[in-house]
């Protein structure tokens, strides 16, 4: 099943500030809700997100229970060289997902 939607510009000029958008499919169950019978629904969230640009970490975020389902994370970085962005999401219950996107810098 599809899990992530990534938007990285295909091309950029060297030194240009580019916007990166990521959308990850996840229920982000807070751990504060109860079922109709009063049982606590266990927490199930993404806890960390990282983005590496040609192996160098350029963005990291810790996620918490107040963040909505299907977290949309967007940030900026400077286009320095052609290469690859690697995205990684890690969460409760062994959740781990990854995606990547390439960019050509002229």
């Amino acid at each position, binding site marked *: *099943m*599809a899990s992530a*939607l990534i*938007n990285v510009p295909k091309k950029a000029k060297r030194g240009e500030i580019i916007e990166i958008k990521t*959308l990850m499919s996840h229920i982000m169950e807070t751990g504060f809700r109860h079922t109709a019978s009063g049982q606590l629904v266990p927490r199930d969230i993404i806890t960390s997100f990282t983005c590496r640009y040609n192996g160098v970490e350029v963005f990291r975020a810790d996620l918490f229970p107040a963040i*909505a*389902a*299907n977290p949309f994370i967007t940030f900026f970085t400077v286009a320095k060289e052609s290469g690859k962005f690697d995205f990684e999401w890690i969460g409760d219950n062994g959740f781990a997902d990854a995606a990547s996107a390439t960019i050509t810098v002229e």
Partner: protein
Amino acid sequence: MKSAGTIAVAVLLIAAGIAASPLLATEIPPTERRSGYAFMSADTKAMQDDDTANPGLLWALDGEALWKRKAGAAGKACADCHNDARESMKGVAARYPALDKALGRPVNLEQRVNLCRSRHQEATPFAYESRELLALAAFVAEQSRGAAIAPDATPELQPFVAKGRDFFMRRQGQLNLGCTNCHDDNWDKHLAGSAVTQALPTGYPIYRLEWQSLGSLQRRLRNCITGTRAQNYDYGAPELVELELYLMSRARGMPIETPAVRP
């Protein structure tokens, strides 16, 4: 005496029928119709417009995967009969619910997917509101994005549209409200801070922020029915399909937005 009374009642009923058949004064004139999109904040609009920010696209992508996956005893995928959905499903959602000749009644898009599963794939139908069913419905409806809503004009369908319209107009529940009391008469006002809107289902299944998930039109209808404190209908109930049919006839000519985002 008795027969005269019966005739008088019959005449009254006919008169009422004639009076009710043209557009009611309360129905929204075509030029004033606005999609739910028009009532949203700039942020929510931006979320719908950007295909990498719109979470509904996650379901549509799942639907694309399911479209190609073989299922059931027949070992067939949707794509084995319908080929490329981008071609074959274009504009299909714009004319649903549609008449199913074998059943002799209208079925909505979700029911059509499940009928295909049971008749042609020989697979078990998906549960209503399951991720799989929403995904396939979103994927199929996405192929009609931008297409004008064009309800099926089949004469056999018209009695069902009329029934749906009756439902829309009829007061019910402990609050004694009909759909029309909010969505025709008060669409320009707010209810507990939220826009009331015009009951024009242009973008279903929708990603509703309140749900934190994609949901079908019937889920939305059931929400509203609960809100009027009326007895609810089960998913897939003929009453809800008839209501869907009428709502789509209200939205005739408006573009499909699936998967839309709503607050």
